């Protein structure tokens, strides 16, 4: 029915009393998401719209059984907030915060490798399972329940492409904004693995961008492990060359990071690659029709 967030999701909002945190908490609650706790150090014991606020995530988990955290705290505290959620035993952390120093994220990434906590983000719009739960800042109004999964590096492209799908009457199982920071949590590969295992996802849309080699690795993974049809779009065919990590960076990633290179890698793995967002929706509709005809 969905991946990552669903009916069993119980959210603790880290930074619930901040301006971002409070605004989106209200939206997520209004969408029907079970927000069971908030955390703001020093405000433990208070309540926010009836949601209990705690000083620590550990306390929130102990008292409310929260299993998912969403992080809205400022960049200089956000890496710590993720570590705190992991140490408190939260299963999934969705970090919305933008601007976290990459050194901090590298440390977080190393730490999470040994535990059971999954991370989405940072610098991402979050995860929504339409009609069920919205954890983050994706506008729920553009989504509609259905059987197409979506994973995207870009935030606004999630909105744009979901909108195109919804306009054509194509609903979504889960939409994942993985974020575009260099060091991040769940990426294309991890999302694809989950969608592949989800019996209620018929097709996956993958939205990439220039830079890095996430798309190339996704292509390799699709070739070997994914039977679910995949439609992709890479933003930036016309964009100026992305920032590169210097000469040595290119060696390590083994990729020049261009949209054309990424599209080629995906097409070689049997993925239909669109050139514009509306073409994504066209290709999805076409594949679903073909699938329906085959069945």
């Amino acid at each position: 029915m969905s991946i990552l967030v669903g009916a069993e999701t119980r959210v603790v909002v880290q930074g619930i009393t901040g301006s971002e945190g409070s605004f989106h908490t209200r939206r997520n609650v209004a969408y029907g998401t079970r927000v069971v706790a908030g955390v703001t150090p020093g405000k433990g014991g208070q309540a926010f719209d009836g949601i209990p606020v705690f000083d620590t995530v550990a306390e929130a988990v102990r008292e409310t059984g929260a299993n998912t955290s969403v992080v809205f705290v400022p960049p200089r505290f956000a890496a710590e907030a993720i570590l705190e959620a992991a140490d408190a035993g939260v299963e999934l952390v969705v970090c919305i915060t933008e601007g976290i120093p990459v050194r901090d994220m590298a440390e977080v990434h190393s730490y999470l490798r040994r535990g059971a906590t999954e991370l989405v983000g940072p610098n991402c719009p979050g995860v929504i399972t339409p009609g069920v739960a919205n954890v983050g800042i994706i506008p729920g109004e553009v989504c509609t329940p259905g059987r197409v999964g979506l994973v995207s590096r870009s935030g606004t492209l999630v909105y744009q492409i979901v909108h195109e799908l919804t306009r054509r009457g194509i609903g979504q199982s889960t939409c994942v904004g993985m974020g575009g920071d260099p060091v991040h949590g769940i990426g294309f590969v991890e999302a694809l693995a989950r969608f592949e295992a989800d019996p209620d996802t018929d097709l996956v849309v993958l939205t990439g961008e220039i830079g890095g080699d996430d798309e190339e690795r996704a292509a390799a993974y699709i070739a070997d492990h994914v039977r679910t049809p995949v439609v992709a779009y890479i933003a930036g065919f016309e964009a100026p060359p992305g920032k590169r990590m210097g000469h040595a960076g290119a060696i390590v990633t083994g990729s020049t990071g261009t949209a054309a290179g990424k599209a080629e890698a995906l097409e070689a793995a049997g993925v239909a690659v669109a050139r514009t967002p509306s073409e994504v929706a066209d290709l999805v509709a076409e594949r679903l029709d073909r699938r329906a005809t085959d069945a």
Partner: protein
Amino acid sequence: MDLYEHMGKDLFRAHGIPVPQGVVARSPEEAAEATRRFGGAAVVKVQVQAGGRGKGGGVALVDSPDEAARRTARMLAEGFAGHPVDRVLVEERLPIERELYASFLLDRSSGDYVGLATAEGGVEIEALAAERPGALRRVRIDPMLGLRPYHLRELTGVFPPSAREGAAAIVRCLFSLLREADATLVEVNPLVELVDGRVVALDAKVTIDDNALVRQPDLAALRDRFPIDEVERRARQAGLQYVKLDGRVGIIGNGAGLVMATLDVVARYGARAANFLDVGGGASADTMATSLEVILSDPAVRVVLINIFGGITRCDVVARGVLEALGRIEATVPIVLRLDGTNAEEGRRIIAEAAHPRIVSAPTMDEAAAQAARLAGEAGP
């Protein structure tokens, strides 16, 4: 943020890494004076945020103050590979025994630090990696573990024994610098062993994580030392991500991905974008006014395409912002406006009621791009 070589070398010095003596010169006279100080022979190197200087004529060995002045004059006048040049670095010439290579960087695929070293420095490292991967030593370093003695042994083991000790001291400092300065890349190419056995960093390439500049005030201060286009400066000050391109359709959008996609869709309809401009999450009247000013300052622009998909951003706010901006600045070209997402209907109503003569509303991203291409006189298929 890529540092100029001389800034990188200042950092190197501060972290105990030996570099040649050098002086930054902003004029031929200063370069001549520096060369005189180094005994009449020196190396003159353009300072740009780009690589490939050795091949591209950005480095000159000079044998007299006059020659230094002449080469500097040409460099300052001609720039380098499209980059403006406002300074050169004049350095002493050192007797080199052999050229090595060492670097550390944050590998975004794995989230680990990676150290690279080879005894064949001075060449293009990508080419070496492709042609003779065995010559390149590569070490993965867990960010929580940090650089350990065995990592260092593994990296410097690729160097000739005579250079190992000197190189190890430098490589250790490079890693400290990487972490303490919040760098995502530190690269020394070439790292040289001198005839007298000393090991010295002859070049310095350092990239600082932009997100970390808030806690690196000294490095953040360098940001304003790079020569920059007046328009770009204005955009940056307003918190806009702006990159100049060479088409005719000015682009404003919210979110890097959506803006890039807008460029793609405009291209689909046969036109080319004049710029990349991401207003980010905000879309106030001020933001819109500055964005329009920035774009309209480019004489090539024939039409502006504003593409907003409201999430956090509310379309009614954007609509009012655009109208208010147009009250302040004169729109010399048509503006195609596409509003979707949060409060889109309200936004469209506001625009319709205002009936501004320059504004053309479009219901979808594709139709907006098609309109813009047509108005730019570049309409394609």
